[in-house]
């Protein structure tokens, strides 16, 4: 199986800030990836690199087997943050634009799709709601028949009902297609239902990446007695986060095998716990030592 998007040491530096810091990953074909991270984590920059909108400072990124940019762009569907559309265009004019600017654009599919989601073709964009505009933008991207679909914060400006409609429309559309999808969001809750892969991005670095079921299987919540120093637990590969409660310590840990130490109770984690643990982690080091030392 080929990979739909591969990054090696992908780095993007702006004048003073580092937006992406040596990111390396390989997204398999047909994955639906939730790209999660706080604002400013580099999610948009990563997606922009994949479309060729941004040139990386260092490292490489390939999509669909070719370098990101003009050559692969015809097969990449992209909806930028806030779904920018020409405000004075009607829906039909936007589809015409898509038809003129893309060699393989499925105009009849796009028209039928807009009618399906209840958007009149002669309506101008500035007369549509945010949810409807997001649908038009999605439709425009889908009609390219992309092999890779990149959606930057597609849900951010939508109300809960519109979020659900958008996601179900998206899932219907990609269910039968050989397409890889990357959706970014600063909340995992939005995407938990639809994604099968998770990438956590923080400060421009990939904190965790993998299939969600594997990630869930390999992370445990461990509850045990307070102690000095960093706990050494057999089977724990890395302590992602640690919090001290009344008379116990809670660890969210990545495991490399069975944990047999009877001092620690272990629980399964939710995707949301997992994401929060990776995002809460400060500078890569858990706060455990400090907190326990004070106890």
């Amino acid at each position, binding site marked *: 199986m080929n990979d739909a998007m591969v990054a090696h040491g992908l780095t993007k530096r702006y004048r003073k800030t580092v937006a992406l810091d040596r990111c390396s990953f390989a997204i398999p074909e047909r994955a639906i990836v939730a790209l999660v991270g706080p604002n400013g984590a580099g999610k948009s920059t990563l997606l922009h690199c994949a479309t060729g909108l941004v040139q990386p400072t260092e490292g490489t990124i390939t999509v669909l087997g070719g370098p990101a940019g003009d050559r692969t762009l015809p097969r990449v569907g992209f909806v930028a943050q806030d779904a920018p559309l*020409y405000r004075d265009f009607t829906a039909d004019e936007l589809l015409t634009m898509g038809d003129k600017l893309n060699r393989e654009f499925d105009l009849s599919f796009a028209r039928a799709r807009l009618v399906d989601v209840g958007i009149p073709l002669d309506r101008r964009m500035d007369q549509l709601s945010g949810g409807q505009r997001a649908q038009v933008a999605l439709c425009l991207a889908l009609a390219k028949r992309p092999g890779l679909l990149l959606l930057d914060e597609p849900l951010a400006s939508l109300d809960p009902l519109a979020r659900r409609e958008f996601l179900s429309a998206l899932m219907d559309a990609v269910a039968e297609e050989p397409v890889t999808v990357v959706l970014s969001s600063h909340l995992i809750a939005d995407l938990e239902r639809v994604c099968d892969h998770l990438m956590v991005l923080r400060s421009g670095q990939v904190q965790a990446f993998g299939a969600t079921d594997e990630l869930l299987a390999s992370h445990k919540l461990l509850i045990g007695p307070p102690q000095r120093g960093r706990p050494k637990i057999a089977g724990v590969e890395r302590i992602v986060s640690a919090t001290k409660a009344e008379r116990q310590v809670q660890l969210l840990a990545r495991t490399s095998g069975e944990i047999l130490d009877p001092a620690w109770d272990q629980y399964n984690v939710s995707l949301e716990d997992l994401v929060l643990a990776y995002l809460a982690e400060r500078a890569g080091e858990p706060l455990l030592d400090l907190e326990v030392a004070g106890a």
Partner: protein
Amino acid sequence: MTWLVWRQHRKQLLFAAASLVVFGAFFVGTGRPIHERFDRAGLPGCLPEAMEAPVVVDLAASVPATPGPAPALPEGVDKPPESTTPALDDAALANARCVQDARAFFDDYQNVIFVGLLLLILPMLVGMFWGAPLIAREIEHGTHRLVWTQGISRLRWATTKVGLVSVAVLVITAIYAGMLTWWITPVIQTSGQRFSYVFFDIHGIVVFGYVVFALALGVFAGAVTGRLLPAMATTVVGFIGVRVAVMLAARDHYLPTETRRLPELDTAYSQMRNDLNGDWIVASRTAIDRVECPAGAGDCARQGLERSYELLTIHPARHFWTFQAIETAIFAVLAIGLLIGAIYWTRRRIT
């Protein structure tokens, strides 16, 4: 892509077409009386020859010279010198009349200079309202992320957009400049000031140079700043700055000046310099020739040892189109540089 450019700019095109109609109505409405008067005065026929006369008789002042009190004669001379006044020949008289008519005509219509001042800023408006928004508005609205991620390259997007808009602007300019040149030619011909800062700058081919430059400046500023208002402001400041700098500092040096010696003034008739030929007079001074009298010619020494004449430093009128071509070329080169810069910047722009 052509469709998209048309769709995005059709309103501006419509506005430009409406403006052309308004300008056309104005030019035809006010231009016809001007041309009628110009024809009626017989100026089209007589001007070509009259313009070339370096000095003409001042009809209003001098014909025939009224006899004043006899000048005090130098000692030892018993009678004034013989009048050497030659009869005015028909050609000189016709030229003088023609020049007089031309001046009267220009006096009546020189107010068009004020319209001309307005026309000076027209190219700048093209830069502000066509050039600056071209890329800046896309970036300001975020739609560059929409259009740059379709199936065509950013380079093609930029070149098509800039190219088509430039062609449209050139066509509009051609129509505009044609109408304007027809309208203003009588006034310029009778002014003798085709090199003047207003007349040189509002007609002829330089208009194309200015318009393309303003457009390119707007596009470039928009591509670099990515914001509409700063781009418009840059266009205004840059356009005025470069135009004034070229006008005041460079234009004078396009070709070396020539020196022209006017015939010595004839004392019999009141004469005046004829500026109608349209030379650009950079400097003028009165020079004096000392006449070397042959040895022993006493009369010579007494009568007129000195002959005064006017010496002009000029750019001759025949260089007008060379000057226009040079100025147009300067602005065209600047424009091409700016457009290439804008496209380059667009290609590697950080979004």
